[in-house]
């Protein structure tokens, strides 16, 4: 049966069809939907792990238990998981282990752009790259087989345009794959130096055998066309190259892109007059092919940053004027994403801006707090960085005799992901930073996945709810406050106190994400136009439910308002009123 599936959905389907029984992940665009689509399968255990390192460690344990296992994350998540990955390359696996890296060329919702194909030679593991949804599904099966046959984790590397683009996929029944027997084997699984020294040799030999395997791996193939132009390509770039060159070129479509099949590449190179490499981001294939002594043109023509497209290839290879822009000169204002109406982060940022304190941000919806009119966030680096940076800022100041504090802001999910070690550091090293936990009771940015603080698992089962206040107190933080994010006064009082306090402080600003289902109805806010002086103070909250009109008046869109009443607390003239029923919860 054919279904229209995104690459993420297809990978989940592949894990199901090829007998996976275990899946872990930490959510992150563009990888999130892989685990989301695995959760409904009753044959597969699935969990959201607190971070990617844990996700991979749990997956490795499951693999040793003999289960076909898939672990998925976004590109920067693989940085977090790099430590276990590089040694898992030595231990090898028992049940097949597939590690999915969803890279994001053009960083649509990421803090950097990195080409995780480089991880494969670095970690010395094989890598597969699908070029559409059908291949994404099929290659999960190939990856499990390669993993088990060659005793290695397999990197399945996709990009946003594979993860989120949909195509037709032929779906099949599931093949049940029983758990492989587990045998205690310290020489293989205990990577103390003496054992690791021996496995090091195995890893090299494995790479040699994989390279040989790659020479006849049917998913890498030559498509002969016009032999004047030969194109070596992989992943989504294959589609763009086909779109532009059609049958006016010959192609070597590489699918096992590490280790590379040297003979196949030489055969192809010898069969064409002019050889190009068309690949997105880094000159990965190009560098390795040049190292074989094969002359090839790549990044001299094809850009080395941002997403590739057929548009770009056409322009770079064939020149010509770009298509005329029919709206050149027309005013088309940008439409940046904003914190939602009723977002509980907004009042906290509103107060932080008022307090004029440096704010070390983190990765999540609250990154949007950097935009006007709030402009409250100073930094965004990686998950958990807010705590360490706030600590470093305060510590360096204190070291030089300045009493300067910085505030770190971190979400609840991110607190469990990467925030806890930073807080331990702050307490351990006698720091005096302020950590604000924006606890909106979910992983909001990626679409409401549960985490250790929500009391519910990925499968929807009730579980122990780890309370952030208990954790921070157990870590030795003496100054802990819990406030309602919607209560501007309470947030301000707590923050002012924390900034005065001598020692580390944690302020937990708690209020469920306004988009969560099943929240109490808080009614709506309305503006009493007779009382309104058009001072526009309410607009400084940046709430998208507030609409300013060309005549200077402001109204509230009742379809957008979520009733947080933050605007009402900001209005000095009492012009914003509660409309209708609804409870103040």
């Amino acid at each position, binding site marked *: 049966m054919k279904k229209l599936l995104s690459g993420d959905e297809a990978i989940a389907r592949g894990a199901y069809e090829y007998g996976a029984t275990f899946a872990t992940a930490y959510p992150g665009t563009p990888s999130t939907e892989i685990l989301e689509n695995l959760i409904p399968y009753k044959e597969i255990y699935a969990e959201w792990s607190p971070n990617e390192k844990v996700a991979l460690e749990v997956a490795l344990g499951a693999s040793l238990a003999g289960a076909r296992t898939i672990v998925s994350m976004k590109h920067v998540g693989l940085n977090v998981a790099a430590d276990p990955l590089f040694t898992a390359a030595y231990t090898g696996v028992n049940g097949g282990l597939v590690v999915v890296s969803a890279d994001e060329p053009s960083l*649509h919702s990421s803090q950097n752009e990195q080409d995780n194909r480089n991880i494969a030679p670095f970690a010395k593991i094989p890598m597969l790259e699908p070029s559409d949804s059908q291949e994404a599904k099929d290659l999960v099966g190939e990856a499990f087989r390669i993993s088990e046959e060659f005793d290695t984790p397999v990197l399945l590397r996709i990009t946003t345009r594979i993860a989120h683009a949909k195509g037709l996929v032929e779906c099949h029944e599931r093949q049940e794959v029983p758990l492989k027997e587990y045998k205690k084997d310290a020489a293989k699984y205990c990577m103390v130096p003496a054992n690791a020294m021996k496995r090091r040799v195995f890893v090299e030999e494995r790479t040699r055998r994989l390279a040989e395997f790659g020479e006849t791996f049917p998913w890498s193939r030559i498509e002969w066309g016009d032999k004047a132009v030969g194109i070596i390509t992989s992943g989504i770039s294959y589609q763009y190259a086909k779109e532009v060159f059609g049958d006016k070129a010959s192609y070597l479509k590489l699918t096992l892109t590490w280790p590379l099949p040297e003979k196949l590449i030489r055969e192809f190179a010898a069969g064409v007059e002019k050889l190009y490499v068309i690949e997105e981001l880094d000159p990965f294939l190009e560098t390795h092919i040049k190292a074989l002594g094969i002359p090839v043109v790549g990044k001299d023509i094809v850009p080395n940053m941002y997403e590739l497209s057929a548009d770009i290839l056409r322009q770079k290879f064939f020149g010509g004027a770009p298509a005329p822009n029919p709206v050149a000169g027309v005013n088309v204002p940008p439409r940046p994403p904003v914190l939602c109406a009723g977002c509980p982060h907004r009042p906290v940022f509103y107060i932080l801006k008022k307090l004029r304190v440096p704010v070390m941000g983190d990765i999540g919806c609250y990154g949007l707090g950097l935009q006007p009119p709030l402009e409250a966030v100073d930094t965004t680096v990686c998950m958990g960085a807010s705590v360490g940076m706030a600590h470093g800022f305060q510590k360096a100041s204190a070291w030089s005799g300045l009493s300067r504090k910085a505030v770190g802001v971190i979400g609840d999910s991110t607190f469990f992901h990467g925030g806890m070690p930073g807080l331990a550091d702050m307490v351990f090293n006698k720091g005096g930073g302020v950590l604000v936990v924006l606890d909106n009771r979910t992983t909001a940015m990626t679409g409401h996945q549960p985490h250790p603080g929500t009391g519910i698992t990925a499968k929807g089962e009730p579980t122990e709810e780890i309370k952030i206040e208990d954790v921070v107190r157990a870590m030795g933080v003496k100054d802990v406050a819990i406030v309602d994010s919607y209560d501007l006064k309470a947030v301000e009082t707590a923050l002012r106190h924390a900034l005065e306090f001598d020692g580390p402080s944690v302020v937990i600003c708690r209020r469920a994400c306004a988009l969560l289902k099943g929240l109490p109805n808080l009614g709506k806010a309305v503006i009493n136009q007779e009382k309104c002086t058009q001072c526009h103070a309410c607009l400084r909250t940046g709430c998208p439910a507030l609409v300013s009109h060309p005549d200077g008046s402001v109204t509230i869109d009742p379809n957008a308002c979520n009733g947080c009443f933050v605007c009402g607390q900001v209005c000095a003239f009492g012009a914003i009123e509660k409309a209708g029923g609804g409870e103040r919860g």
Partner: protein
Amino acid sequence: MAKVTNVLLVGVGGQGTILATRVLAGVLMQEGYDVKMSEVHGMSQRGGSVVTFVRYGDKVNSPLVEKATADLILAFEKLEALRYLPYLKPEGTLVVNDLAILPAPVLLGKAEYPYNALDILGQKVKDLVVVDAAKLAEEKTGNARTQNIVLLGALAKRLGIAPGTWEKAVSENVPPQTVDANLKAFWAGWDRGQV
């Protein structure tokens, strides 16, 4: 190369463009086409600009539509119609919702909304269909939230696919209790989309 038809659905996060795209894709699959579609998730869900590319034909390679090659654009909002107009080919069709949603910079007084968007589109687009989808949705279904399906109906008439196929795809993709309202919305749009 075999003919591929290119369609864009553009709008603002939360307007229901993804649901409309799902219905469209369902119809194209039913018709036996190779279909690829592409959208960018992530921060655009927070009230940002949203675009979905749909390509169909005998064999589709790239999931992206190139500039000046779209046969059809369905715009759920006027400013977004302007933003993505460079994708429309000169003889292409634009179906636009007569609706303005102000982006944050406009709300903050840092930018001006092009209130004359329909005039500009009228000058630039040879085949322009303007639909007051909110009004039609209210009139025909009593629910403004069906306006995405009204718009889809207006687009549907241009694709030369049997109405029954559309009815089936709409019914399969909307919540069961809203099937009737959405079918009414679809036909309201269909009637509005002149050929």
